[in-house]
């Protein structure tokens, strides 16, 4: 049981906690479910930064379900049956890095004018579909390039998505 008293101060009243004399100190690493809940609410960049904190955080942050949550956070309802497809094509983390993030940032830059400065993580169904299609094309292209060996491991996207990596000439 965790009581949150004031801002920043947490009193732990955990019967199983064997910390003697230090029961006021809270360590998030002991409560991974909480950590995951926090990470679920981060944006992509922060999630990537979180992965650099320590090995434990790295292994947690690389959990694909976190990235899935990130990808489909504001799309309602999340498309059915997407998960096996995306997992097979390389996972949500790769989808985000290779397609979703560039697509969003490129399209966000296009929406000039009255948009607020707040980073918009909301994206609509069309953008989701387009990203998925591009992701699939990218997987196929890696197949073509990689020869008969099947999936080619590697983080750099295939050349058909090079246009996404190019800086926008604003």
């Amino acid at each position: 049981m965790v009581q949150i008293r004031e801002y920043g101060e947490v009193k732990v009243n955990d019967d199983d906690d064997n910390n003697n004399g230090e029961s006021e100190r809270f360590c998030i690493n002991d409560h991974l479910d909480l950590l995951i809940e926090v990470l679920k609410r981060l944006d992509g960049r922060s999630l990537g930064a979180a992965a650099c904190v320590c090995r434990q955080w790295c292994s947690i942050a690389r959990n694909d379900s976190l990235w899935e949550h990130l990808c489909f956070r504001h799309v309602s309802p999340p498309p059915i049956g997407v998960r096996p497809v995306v997992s097979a094509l390389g996972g949500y983390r790769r989808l985000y890095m290779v397609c979703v993030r560039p697509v969003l940032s490129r399209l966000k830059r296009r929406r000039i004018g009255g948009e607020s400065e707040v980073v918009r993580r909301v994206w609509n169904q069309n953008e989701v579909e387009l990203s998925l299609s591009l992701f699939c094309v990218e997987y196929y292209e890696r197949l073509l390039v990689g020869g008969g060996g099947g999936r080619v491991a590697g983080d750099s996207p295939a050349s058909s998505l090079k246009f996404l990596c190019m800086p926008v000439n604003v």
Partner: protein
Amino acid sequence: MKRDRERERKKEAKPSSSSSMAVGIGKAKDLHQSLPDSGGMDELLEVLGYKVRSTDMADVAKKLEQLEMVMGEDGILQLSDTVHYNPSDLSGWVQSMLSELNTNSSDNSSSTNFGIVLPGESSSTTMIDFSNNKQIDTQQTGGKMYDDDPYDLRAIAGGAIYGTIAEESPVSRNGIKRMKAAAPGSEAVDVPPESPKPVVLVDSQEVGIRLVHTLMACAEAVQQDNLKLADALVKHVGLLAASQAGAMGKVATYFAGALAQRIYKIYPQDGLETSCWEILQMHFYESCPYLKFAHFTANQAILEAFAGATRVHVIDFSLNQGMQWPALMQALALRAGGPPAFRLTGIGPPQPDNTDALQQVGWKLAQLADTIGVEFEFRGFVANSLADIDASMLDIRPSEVEVVAVNSVFELHRLLARPGAVETVLNSIKAMKPKIVTLVEQESNHNGAVFLDRFNEALHYYSTMFDSLESSALTQPLSQDLVMSEVYLGRQICNVVACEGTDRVERHETLSQWRNRLNSAGFDPVHLGSNAFKQASMLLALFAGGDGYRVEENDGCLMLGWHTRPLIATSAWQPGSTIIE
């Protein structure tokens, strides 16, 4: 810009308060009101506070151009402390600026900031070009600066040629502004006699115009079978093209090469390069959105036609590397109700080294299908021409069992090289009983009977294409894709210009021509929905230089173009409901 308006007005030669050139200065409303005639002064400028006589407009415009020329890049530095009065008297003010700057610059020994083009001996037109230092064209992104290379003095050819092209220079994307002065240079611009060498800047845009004209003159010579003149002209084009930077130079080089081949009757062998062609097409796929647009819009139409079907069959007239199908398979995998069983029949040309390229592509697609959980079946057909394939070979299953789609991306136009072939193929398409036929073709008529017309059309079309490629070059200047894409297009150019008869396979036709053909063959159009439009627009927005690309809807068909020029068109069809026996 006021200068634009002055020039426009001069061309129209009549003040019109309802003119459409409200230049966004916020006074558009005022322009539409009727203004009292204030003593012969120009009404529109009056609104802005400048008093210029309507009769003096041409003069003032010319002076302003001279002023800009003289000021050049360092114009501000050249200004002394002389005070110029009364800017509302535009004519007098500009004159005083000019005379001051001319006296200033004549003192400088290195007067390379301005260029004066002397009129030809017999010509009565004065030509003044704008250098690209001023960003006149707001569409130009990235600020590509043309260098002020000092060129040798060149006498301009007779004004007749240049006079006619003032309105039609679509190849030069920065919009050349030129004017004809009625009085030939009586307002003499001072050519400082002290300068050691009269340096004349022939701006690269002017070289571009000259290039186009020499190309057209050469094509005309070829049309008239005047091969000696054509030969001389084509060499001249080569020289000009070499000095021209950018898209225009590249296009001109390809066209000159093709013309040379036509003149010397060296026809390229089309068959040898089949395998290279697919690699080139891959690079073209990556560097610009045309193929992606084609694939995505066609896929959307096919997807909508396949709604509710449990078994589907796609017949692809030009499989190449199969880049179109992963996206469709993914969309089918994720559709509500689960994916259908997907059967793909791919048709392709014979490979020179006898490898079974089709089967390899099919195998890769099968791997992908296995990954995403779509039941997949593939069959490949090697054929020299689509007319060799008929429906019975393709194992068409009854339409209650399987829904059929036929897809042709940049392939059907090749059939026009042989008479009767396209009708045969359209009939066999009907025999396949497809639910939908998707057709993507280049939007230009390169199949006219007269060579010169074909040449001109192709010149405009490929110039626009190269222009759009160039915009992506601004962000990736060393990209191999760009060069390969240009080679890919260059081969098409060569085929359009240099080949004849059955060798000339790049017989592009416009959407309206295809519409007529398909309508008379008994097909009804299917409108591409708004989903396709949205997806296409989004796709284009992702491309750098995406500002230049435009998606247009044209009576149910989608066209992708560069700025105002449509370049490719996607349309969808179904066999007509009335069976024509």
